[in-house]
């Protein structure tokens, strides 16, 4: 019998809220720094005091346009803000200034890698809005008698990007989010820090029978704040819906909350309690009319984006797709790679060392850690130059790398001080080989009887005698010559 689950296609759409890396809030001059003491970064505007009025942050709009262009969206010639109404104690005005009928941009796409193949996920819209405050519950949300409100985050600029329901699996959802984050980091519009809430994701998921023309009833899942949680929550939800459908039940349209601790989703509110947001144009702000010239100026200023850079790494440096994909994850990482290759023209060597050594110490997607790396691209290149020209062996180089990472010194300093330079001189090594042959008559005898593997042990002895500095190929050819002469 076939697996009944194979009968359904999973359909996912993603909404991502990205906090923009502006210096001040969306509609007032308060700073946006994370982790400040409660209610220390507020003013009448972001606390919704009577009489206060919003004024649009120009850079937030520019960041929105930059992102929209990177996602190949159409930037609308005219857009406006609207008020979205619902009551919640973390929302100072009990309406959020957002965009509704006329968003900043529409109709674009994001390319991601699915099974090594490029795939485009359509983007429906991109708009700007303000964040709400933060609630701290005295106990858990369910048991708390009271909650505390901090408005520091209130008014921080957010960019909401809504995809079309083009995502076809939980893994692909995670891949979308990774690619999304990479683009934002390349553009410098968001710090991408998911733990601090700089990037937050909601998902819509439904199942339909293969080939069915209509979409199934969708469920919205909130609170997906890491790549792992996006995938886990959607896997859980796909399974839950699949089992319900298999039992002949109907899916209820609702909003569910992902509980990462329990590894399950649970009902937040049903459709019958759906909000009536009562959107209307924000009368305190005037429309934006972005001229074609101003949009083109932003376009001209766009950096090379991950997909293009990945392709260029393959083309220009002859890297395998796998390497290119990994090294272009963040702009800082790719910049690091290119800076190193400029110093030492061995693209694959640099790639190998970055993937095997550097990224063991520094997470690939952590731009801040990379910027603080004790080994600069120039230092890495310096080390690899010594490897490439045979000054040190690969084995020694790994030790030198560790030392460089700990001390921040360059390779030459360490190699010079510790006398780690490779010995390739035939006369010097010949003497060592002679010594080793004399000291190991049994191995020599074994070799003569045809046990050629005995040569390996002899090489090991030579390396040991030279503290690993001997050039392995010189040692090999010397040994071979001397053994055959015996």
């Amino acid at each position, binding site marked *: 019998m076939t697996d009944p689950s194979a009968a359904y296609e999973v359909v996912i759409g993603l909404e991502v809220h990205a906090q923009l890396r502006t210096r*001040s809030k969306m509609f007032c001059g308060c700073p946006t720094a994370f982790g400040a003491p409660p209610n220390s970064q507020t*003013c009448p505007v972001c606390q919704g005091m009577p009489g206060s009025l919003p004024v649009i942050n120009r*850079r937030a709009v520019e960041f929105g346009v930059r992102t929209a262009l990177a996602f190949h969206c159409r930037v609308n010639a005219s857009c406006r803000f609207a008020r979205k109404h619902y*009551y919640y104690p973390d929302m100072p005005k009990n309406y959020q200034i957002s965009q509704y009928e006329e968003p900043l941009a529409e109709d674009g796409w994001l390319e991601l890698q699915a099974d090594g193949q490029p795939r485009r996920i359509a983007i429906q819209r991109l708009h700007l809005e303000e964040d709400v405050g933060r609630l701290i519950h005295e106990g858990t949300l369910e048991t708390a008698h009271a*909650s505390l409100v901090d408005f520091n985050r209130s008014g921080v600029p957010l960019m909401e990007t809504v995809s079309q329901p083009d995502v076809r699996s939980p893994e692909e959802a995670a891949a979308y989010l990774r690619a999304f984050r990479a683009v934002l980091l390349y553009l410098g519009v968001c710090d991408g820090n998911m733990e601090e809430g700089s990037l937050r994701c909601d998902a819509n998921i439904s199942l339909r029978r293969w080939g069915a023309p209509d979409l199934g009833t969708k469920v919205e899942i909130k609170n997906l704040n890491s790549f792992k949680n996006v995938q886990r929550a959607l896997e859980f939800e796909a399974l839950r819906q699949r089992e319900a459908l298999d039992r002949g039940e109907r899916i209820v349209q609702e909003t569910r909350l992902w509980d990462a601790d329990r590894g399950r989703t649970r009902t937040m*509110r049903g459709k019958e309690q759906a909000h009536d947001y009562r959107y209307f144009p924000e009368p305190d702000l005037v429309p934006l009319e972005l001229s074609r010239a101003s949009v083109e100026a932003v376009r001209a200023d766009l950096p090379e984006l991950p997909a293009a850079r990945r392709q260029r790494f393959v083309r220009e440096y002859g890297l395998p797709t796998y390497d290119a994909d990994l090294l272009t994850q963040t702009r800082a990482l790719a910049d690091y790679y290119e800076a190193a290759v400029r110093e030492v023209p061995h693209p694959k060597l640099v790639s190998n060392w970055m993937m095997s050594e550097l990224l063991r110490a520094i997470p690939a997607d952590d731009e801040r850690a990379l910027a603080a790396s004790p080994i600069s691209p120039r230092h890495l290149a310096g080390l690899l130059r010594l490897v490439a020209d045979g000054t040190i062996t690969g084995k020694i180089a790994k030790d030198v790398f560790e030392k460089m990472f700990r001390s921040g010194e360059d390779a030459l300093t360490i190699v010079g001080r510790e006398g780690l330079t490779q010995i390739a001189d035939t006369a010097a090594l010949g003497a060592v080989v002679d010594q080793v042959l004399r000291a190991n008559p049994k191995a020599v005898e074994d070799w003569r009887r045809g046990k050629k593997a005995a040569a390996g042990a002899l090489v090991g002895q030579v390396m040991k005698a030279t503290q690993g500095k001997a050039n392995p190929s010189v040692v090999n050819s010397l040994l071979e010559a001397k053994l055959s002469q015996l």
Partner: protein
Amino acid sequence: MGGRIETREVEQVARLARLELSAEEKERMREQLDRILGYIDKLRRLDTEGVPPTSHAVPMVNVMREDEPRPCLPPQEMLANAPDRSGDFFRVPRIIED
């Protein structure tokens, strides 16, 4: 003569507007809204086909500020009017979903 708005709708709107209304207030509100909406109904007689909406009396566009931080107000000033607080937080009763 009445019937434009029902008590059920008054209750629904009051819920959206976060207004607790007594039974008596609901009925009075229903009657008054009904009369006002009756007057407003005259708009139906006016043909607005193809007329664009006006949301701002004086047309202006692209009013923005530079992304420059300005001083905030100190927490003690921002919290001075708080009906309830705990340290430098505003304090609210138990939160339940709507």
